[in-house]
């Protein structure tokens, strides 16, 4: 029962991503990426990571993409511009990407995985994913957690300093 939904979501993600990298209108590209994030959140729910799905919608599309949209609107991007949108070397770019794809396929195709383990809780039940994630995040991974908070602080200060108006003395 999960497999048709998986195909649906992954088709959605791939199609919207392909559209996104080919749009010349930047706002359309950003909105298509938001759409692909929704499909991705659905995929996360299928894999038993429902907390992460909500985090993806809340932070990635509700936070980061809004930041992108704000910046696009405030920066006066020439959306319907007639200048060249694509690199002159795009043929070599596609070639490199295809070679990379071939390498990945030749490595992954040889992988043999044992039988999939089942989650120790029933999917979607309470207590389930959220409680287990909390108990592991604050005991085993508390150090990376604190480091990420310092990283966020550094990024915030850096972004403010970089984007401030220079006051000419």
């Amino acid at each position, binding site marked *: 029962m*999960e*497999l048709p939904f*998986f195909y649906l979501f992954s088709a959605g993600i*791939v199609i919207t*991503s392909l559209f*996104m*990298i080919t*749009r010349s209108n*930047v706002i359309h*590209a*950003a909105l298509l990426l938001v759409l*692909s994030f929704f499909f*991705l959140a659905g*995929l*996360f729910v299928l894999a038993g*990571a429902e*907390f*992460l799905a909500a*985090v993806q919608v809340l*932070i*990635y599309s509700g*936070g*980061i993409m809004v*930041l*992108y949209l704000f*910046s*696009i609107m*405030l*920066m006066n*991007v*020439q959306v319907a511009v007639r*200048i060249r*949108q*694509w*690199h002159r070397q*795009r043929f070599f*770019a*596609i070639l*490199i*990407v295809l070679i*990379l*794809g071939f390498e*990945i396929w030749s490595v992954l195709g040889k992988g043999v*995985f044992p039988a*999939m*383990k*089942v*989650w120790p809780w029933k999917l979607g039940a309470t207590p389930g*994913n959220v409680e*287990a*994630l909390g108990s*592991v*995040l604050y005991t085993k991974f508390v150090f990376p957690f604190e480091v*990420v908070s310092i*990283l*966020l602080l550094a*990024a*915030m200060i850096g972004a*403010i300093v970089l984007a401030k108006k*220079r006051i000419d003395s």
Partner: protein
Amino acid sequence: MIPISHFLTLGAVLFLIGAAGVLMRRNAIIILLSIELMLNAVNVTLIGFSRQWADLSGQVFAIFVIAVAACEAAVGLAILISLNRDKTIMNVDEVNLLKW
């Protein structure tokens, strides 16, 4: 039950699409969006592995990846805004002076 190979294939395809976007486009914001797509491809792979071994470390790491993506988006956009201050530069090959 979704086999792990499906997740890995999807992650690989998304990563390649993102890489193609980064290498082929001139517009700085589309390049940043393609980088976000690559980070999401990594997330898909992590979640796939987390499901395979029923280990929550994959999901925890995916949360950290999202946090780092937020930082990188903020700093990248701040750089773009400061580049755009005097005149609108939108294509990355126009940023070719060593000292601004």
